[in-house]
């Protein structure tokens, strides 16, 4: 018995070391980016900064935070994320509740057409043409209406609702409440873990998505922060390639590098702040979803 526990210890030590290395490899690139963004731009180009800013500077941040187009796209992203997430969660949960009732007329048919959408779709071009035909292109609503519903999320909601005791609903029904009312007043307040999970998934998608901002809107006012950042990075990537040729760095290149870093940190900050609060929920939510498969 003693011999075995010694063996176990060696095994545990190896795994622990691997895990620490993985955590370091995960955290360090993020930390390094934050450090560089707080360092003086010209000094950072000299290299040699690994753990802590060498010449601390807030200049990049003050440039970013006073830039009107960055601020406006940040606000755009906030509005899009809040409105998009709230409508998505409510609409998908409401549908899931209705679809979870066996007596619903046409239920099997609705579930069948929903399941099919998870495995086959028309692709990007027909989807774009549809949005064009129904005049959603280049409007704020293009971020909201086509993303209001997701059948995979519906399945996660449905599995959760199955666990809600029926006696609760029945007592509400006896009191004369109809299904919509039961859903809003009884089911929703009991479903916080699954709501938080789906809200996190959808909220993160809205916040991080940059492709919709490229392809479905042109108006600069409608440009989310992730799209703004994408354009910034794509631009600096092509200029970086040009800089490979002799001639070296220009002052604007140095400057744009540090502004890019500061924008990246600002664009990520909301997620990093929300993440710890949501974490305990989504682990539970994933479990519920994975039971059903």
């Amino acid at each position, binding site marked *: 018995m003693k011999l075995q526990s010694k063996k176990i210890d060696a095994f545990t030590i190896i795994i622990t070391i691997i895990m620490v290395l993985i955590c370091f490899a995960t955290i360090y690139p993020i930390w390094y980016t934050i450090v560089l963004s707080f360092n003086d731009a010209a000094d950072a180009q000299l290299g040699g900064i690994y753990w802590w800013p060498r010449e601390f500077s807030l200049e990049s941040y003050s440039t970013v935070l006073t830039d009107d187009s960055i601020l406006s796209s940040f606000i755009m992203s906030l509005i899009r994320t809040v409105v998009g997430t709230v409508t998505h969660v409510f*609409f998908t949960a409401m549908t899931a509740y209705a679809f979870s009732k066996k007596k619903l007329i046409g239920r099997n048919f609705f579930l069948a057409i929903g399941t099919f959408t998870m495995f086959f779709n*028309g692709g990007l071009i027909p*989807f774009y043409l549809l949005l064009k035909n129904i005049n959603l292109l280049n409007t704020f609503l293009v971020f909201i209406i086509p993303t209001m519903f997701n059948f995979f999320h519906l399945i996660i909601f449905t599995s959760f609702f199955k666990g809600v005791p029926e006696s609760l609903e029945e007592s509400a029904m006896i009191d004369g409440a109809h299904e919509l009312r039961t859903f809003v007043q009884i089911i929703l307040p009991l479903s916080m873990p699954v709501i938080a999970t789906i809200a996190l998934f959808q909220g993160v998608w809205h916040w991080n998505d940059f492709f919709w901002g490229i392809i479905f809107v042109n108006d600069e006012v409608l440009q989310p922060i992730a799209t703004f950042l994408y354009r910034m990075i794509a631009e600096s990537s092509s200029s970086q390639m040009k800089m490979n040729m002799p001639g070296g760095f220009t002052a604007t290149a140095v400057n744009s590098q540090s502004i890019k870093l500061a924008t990246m940190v600002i664009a990520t900050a909301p997620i990093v702040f929300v993440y710890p609060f949501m974490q305990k929920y989504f682990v539970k939510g994933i479990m519920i979803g*994975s039971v059903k498969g």
Partner: protein
Amino acid sequence: MKQIPLNNNKSLGKRIFRQRYLLFMALPAVVWMIVFNYIPMYGIIIAFKQYRIIKPISAAPWVGLAHFKELFSEGDFAMVMKNTLGMGFLRLFVGFPLPILFALFLNELGNIRFKKAVQTISYLPHFLSWVVLGGIMMNWLGDVGIFNEILLKLGIIDKARFFLAEPESFWGIVVISDIWKELGWGAIIYLAAMAGISPALYEAATVDGANRWHKMLHITLPSIMPTISILLILAISGILTTNFDQILVLRNAANQTASDVIDIFVYRVGFRMNRFSYAQAISLFKSVVALILLLGANQFSKKTQGHSLF
């Protein structure tokens, strides 16, 4: 629906009336699915037409399989397929097993707090945008980046390289950065499955003299096999689906011969060159292959393992 006899219209009407609130909650999503999922499926037919954006789909002339013939005879298609499959197989053979290993090892840790901390940290990158990650990578892999700095110091290279401009490095960069981002998150579903294994199984094995390896191989792994099968079916059917956001951020003119994959090709040819019909042909090709792979893998898994999606 089929159990309602036709001569029973009255009772159907009654049932509809009784369910009016329930139907009011269900039908908007049905309409939504028809509009946003099913109407675009009609748009697939432009792959067989000569569609121009200024006219409706119905006005475009039919051209049969002309776009497919052009596609399969052009050199672009071979390049796009090579890149898509190359990165797809790397993802399948390297990216798929790693989260399973990670979950198995994490499950062996006795210290709950340390385990929780590792989980919290390893899930985090999943929530970062590919734009931000792409920015970080350009910073790291750029010619004055930390990567070149270290390699130069160690004497592995004697001149700074701009890795993202090298086609031969591109697949590796994509696969490694994808693992970096999704390793922890990919393990979450296996950890959930492991949490459901009865402790009695492990206790019985200990009595029988099994060590940790035995338990991991003969209890933990078989218990998560159904989850692995299901995710493998999905991974196989997704072999042609690349991470669009990731490649869109990391691609550039210099690495195009290694970074042009189906999804990017559809976007580039369709939207940048306005060849919608031609781009839709390759998009349809991809959807059909994915569906066939899904049904095939599902059937195979059902026969050999007894686990299937449907």
